[in-house]
């Protein structure tokens, strides 16, 4: 079977800077893969190139056997990519329910419907509500997103990625800036996702990262320096040096 996500010799240059410098990685279907690395290692840029937010300078991205390197972002979403952002990207003027409703409709041709009110689409509404329940935001369904707390906006961010039932989830520091209890909640939620779903996650919190990962990829200065099971990565001297600083 082909891998869920396969990246080959991916390069992304910004002017003279090679943010991603020839990264190759292969994530089998159903795996939980965590990407770690110091700031500026190219993790988020790599995510952007895989999900289509940015176009890579060179290299190839394959999603379940299909070459998606040149596909626009919305088409990749239609193929089953779900994405969260490091900095919450939610629609502040709409309610929580409207946000996840848009997520539910994003991969549905009924997003073009003009003649019926959106609230009349019962199945869409149900999917949207289910997604809010999953992340624990059901009580805030009618609340304008602008009024939510930071932690709640992170939960919504995750709900947006999950609503359209993706085949692979790309989570960019889902726990960033959360309190320890909120972190634990998100970690439990991610840990409880069905194993049919492939998860790629960028995470700085080592406890969260190593607790969830089947396998860890370490990036440093745009390159992969190690790829292995959590225990191996944790004890690797090179990783300790680049990631935890000179000891």
């Amino acid at each position: 079977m082909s891998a869920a996500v396969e990246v080959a010799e991916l390069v992304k240059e910004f002017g003279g800077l090679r943010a991603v410098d020839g990264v190759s990685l292969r994530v089998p279907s159903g795996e939980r893969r965590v990407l770690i690395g110091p700031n500026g290692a190219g993790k988020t840029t790599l995510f952007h190139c895989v999900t289509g937010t940015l176009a890579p300078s060179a290299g190839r991205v394959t999603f379940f056997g299909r070459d998606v390197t040149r596909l626009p972002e919305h088409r990749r979403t239609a193929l089953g990519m779900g994405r969260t952002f490091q900095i919450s990207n939610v629609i502040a003027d709409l309610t929580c329910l409207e946000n996840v409703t848009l997520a539910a409709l994003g991969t549905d041709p009924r997003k073009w419907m003009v003649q019926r009110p959106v609230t009349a689409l019962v199945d869409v509404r149900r999917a949207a509500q289910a997604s809010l329940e999953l992340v624990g935001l059901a009580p805030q369904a009618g609340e304008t997103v602008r009024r939510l707390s930071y932690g709640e906006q992170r939960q919504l961010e995750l709900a947006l990625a999950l609503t359209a039932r993706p085949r692979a989830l790309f989570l960019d520091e889902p726990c960033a800036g959360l309190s320890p209890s909120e972190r634990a909640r998100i970690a439990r939620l991610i840990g409880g996702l069905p194993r049919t779903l492939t998860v790629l996650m960028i995470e700085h919190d080592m406890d969260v990262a190593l607790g969830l990962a089947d396998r860890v990829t370490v990036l440093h200065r745009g390159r992969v320096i190690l790829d292995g099971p959590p225990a191996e990565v944790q004890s690797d001297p090179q990783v300790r040096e680049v990631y935890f600083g000179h000891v």
Partner: protein
Amino acid sequence: MTPARLAVAVALVAAAVALPHVAGPFWMGLVTQMIVFGLLALSVDLLLGHAGLFSVCHGSFFAVAAYTTAILQVRYGVPTALAAPAGLVAGTLLGLVFGLAVRTRGVYFILITIAFGYVVWGVAHRWSSFTGGDNGVTNVPFPAVGSWRVESHVEYYYLALAAAALLALGYRVLVRSPFGLALRGIKGSESRMRTLGYDSNRHLYAAFVLSAVLASMAGVLYVYYNRFVNPVAASFPVSVEAALMAIVGGTGTIAGPFIGSAIILGLRNWVSSFFELYAAVMGLVFIVAVLWVPEGLVGLALRLSGRTARG
């Protein structure tokens, strides 16, 4: 609908129907004009208030529809049943072309729509053999379809009122639909919407064309009311004022653009009767609106009553 809103709606309809019995021809003309420009403002607001695009070329669709209908009706004797739809089609076709502006955003979108608007104005102004130049096309008759014909300004007022009511209802359905919600999503965060699977440019293009259709309808209603059309209809101030009507009344609402149209046209009529520099007064009104009441009067009322603005 709450009983209070129902009461307001019934009162408004009753007042609108009864108006010709209490108001003279001058006032009927002014109110008809408010309805027509309210529709134009509403068309601009589909982009401004819902999709977050500030178009400054909607006078073009309005004018091209008006000119097409007028030229066919006056010069070629084409009956209303064909001339009016032809005007609508002409404005829509122009919308399909000008819709390419959605490839740009922000200030570039504003600039390109200004440029589009000037092209149309230039054609109306300079191609005198076809458009009549500065004199425009005059002697447009009242509309007549078969044995039914409009014979007075009062009858035309009722026609415009009915058309506006139907279009406003259609608009309400549109903005509450999945498509309408997607436009508000794009206004809020286009990058997020792309990640959710929306081809935002296609959504914005469709919204642009729909708003051009509505502006064209306003143009057809305008030419039968005004009885003539000249390059002023295609001019930059018409496009800008339509946007400002929406802003003064309240963007993202349906009543807002009509209220804004009523305030601005009413104020202009009143001020220009005793003050030559009325344009300066209008400018001050816009500055006050943008600086202190950016959500418009409807938005302000909703905020004061603790609700959020919604179509």
